[in-house]
């Protein structure tokens, strides 16, 4: 208490260097603890932010970030003029929008369905199996996909059982978005439903009972009582999803795509990976990456503003 009061007093008067040093001395050990974490953030988070400068330079490793010559917006112009640019933007947006349209409502529906289950053992079994995919590595998920979708894989076995023609799904661009989105839902829908289930347990049961006495049936109760109660959670989750629109899932794409599916599968992030890491076009790929982050931040801020206006909840 004593320390708190002293601190409050001091906020009115600007501290001298000496007083500041005294404060730090008092929490010496806490500052010692912070040294390594601060170094970590400085090197691995702020270091790369400084490194973004190379997108305005002609970066040469030997000259370093600061020593390389400035070239202004050269790389951005090059990227924006490239006809491939539109394909990348289209693919990035479409893959993410598909994920949002199909992937966003399913966990909510799943949570609502689970919430109606009174048989607790059945509920637990379904929850247990639906959380599991979340813990399976991307490599294993993609490994299962490539093998299930191969010429004599599970899916083609089922197709030929019904007398349909076998297809090499991963070689045709028209299937990529479906494969990517569906497997993404399989991986995450159970896990994401946890958050909705948690907010469903907070729904006031007395209102639900009152609705029941008023003669509302199960469906009406869900639509008019339960669902509105979790709208704040839904909108927060939606903003976070929109904020992530530009960054989703490139690790999985890199495992699943190939030259013949670039048409629909190549996104900005995977393009950055190929140009930057595989071709060592550092400045150009950093510029492309920066373009993506800027669009991402704009999306996040806009989504947050919209949400605040509509439902009065936001991330900040």
């Amino acid at each position, binding site marked *: 208490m004593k320390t708190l009061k002293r601190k409050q007093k001091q906020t009115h008067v600007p501290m001298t260097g000496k007083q500041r040093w005294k404060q730090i001395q008092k929490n010496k050990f806490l500052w010692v603890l912070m040294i390594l974490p601060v170094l970590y953030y400085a090197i691995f988070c702020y270091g790369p*932010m400084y490194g973004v400068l190379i997108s305005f330079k002609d970066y040469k490793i030997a000259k370093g970030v600061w020593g390389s010559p400035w070239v202004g917006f050269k790389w951005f112009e090059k990227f924006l003029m490239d006809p491939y640019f539109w394909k990348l933007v289209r693919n990035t947006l479409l893959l993410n929008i598909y994920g949002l349209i199909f992937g966003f409502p399913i966990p909510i529906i799943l949570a609502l369905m689970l919430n109606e289950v009174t048989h607790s053992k059945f509920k637990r079994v379904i929850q247990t199996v639906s959380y599991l995919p979340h813990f399976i590595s991307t490599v294993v998920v993609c490994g299962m996909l490539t093998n299930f979708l191969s010429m004599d894989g599970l899916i083609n076995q089922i197709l030929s059982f019904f007398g349909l023609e076998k297809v090499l799904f991963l070689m045709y661009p028209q299937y990529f978005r479906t494969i990517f989105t569906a497997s993404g839902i399989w991986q995450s829908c159970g896990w994401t439903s946890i958050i909705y289930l948690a907010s469903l347990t907070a729904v006031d049961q007395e209102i639900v009972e009152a609705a029941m006495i008023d003669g509302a049936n199960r469906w009406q109760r869900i639509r008019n009582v339960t669902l509105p109660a979790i709208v704040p959670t839904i909108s927060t989750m939606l903003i976070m999803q929109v904020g992530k629109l530009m960054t989703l899932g490139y690790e999985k794409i890199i495992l699943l795509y190939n030259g013949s599916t670039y048409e629909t599968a190549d996104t900005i992030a995977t393009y950055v990976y190929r140009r930057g890491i595989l071709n060592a076009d550092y400045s150009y790929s950093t510029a492309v990456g920066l373009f993506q982050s800027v669009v991402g931040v704009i999306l996040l801020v806009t989504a947050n503003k919209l949400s605040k206006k509509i439902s009065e909840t936001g991330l900040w």
Partner: protein
Amino acid sequence: MKKERVRGRKPQSLGSRIFDVVNYLLLAAVGFVMFYPMFYVFIVSISSAEYINQGAISFFPRGINFEAYKRVFDTESIWTGYKNTFLYTIVGTAVNVALTAMCAYPLSRKDFYGKKPLTVFITLTMFVSGGMIPLYLVVNGLHIMDTMWAVILPSAISTYNMIVMRTSFSAIPDSLVESAHLDGANDVHIFFKIVLPLSKPILATMVLFYAVTHWNSYFPALLYLNDQSKYPVQVIMRNIIIDGDMAQAGDMSGMLNVVATNYKYAIIIISVIPILLIYPFLQKYFTKGVMIGAVKG
């Protein structure tokens, strides 16, 4: 609980019963779709080549044998991969948990001078980042490329986990810290003797969080490691299962029971078993972690 009481009092209407039947059926279908792929991989991995090639396996293994597993255990690169994965997981998790706790504790203390600017400094990184290439160049500049540290250090602290941990630390009553102060204990003593022992559940959660991430991660290794002998098992698995590189598996032409398919599926099952073993703990702690993060993050 209340719901059940009410329902017991009044007989259910027909509509409500139909609703229940449809709901249970749909959920059972969801459960099946979630469970079947893993189950299918398992039954194929223990079936014989003859039935696999016929495509005759759907719900039960046929011609049960474990030769595919034997073949996997005889594959040297898989062993090297697991050795590396164990090393990266253990060292990585230790670094993660230590640094996360070191970062979270000061920020949880109300009387920590400098709390506000440091919090801003750290949480800002959740929204803005330099991107893949500048980070790659930083790692390159530190001369840790192609070493274990390149896989571990760039993700030493997950800010999200750090916030979860800070929330948990700040739930420790201030009175406890204050009375320890009055007894003459310094911050070092308070941290190691009071705060950490009281935080065992959250520390366990963090160990699980980070360990699973290391166990499953492949991308940092793909970016920062060139030496094959340093690859973690996920990268080795990628080469065999996804790219179909069967060169390391040796000659299979003479084998009756093993083909590429059950060999690959056996690899998948082996890599998933450790996750299944700790899954009960995962479910318990992870759900808690998700809640804390969702409510207070």
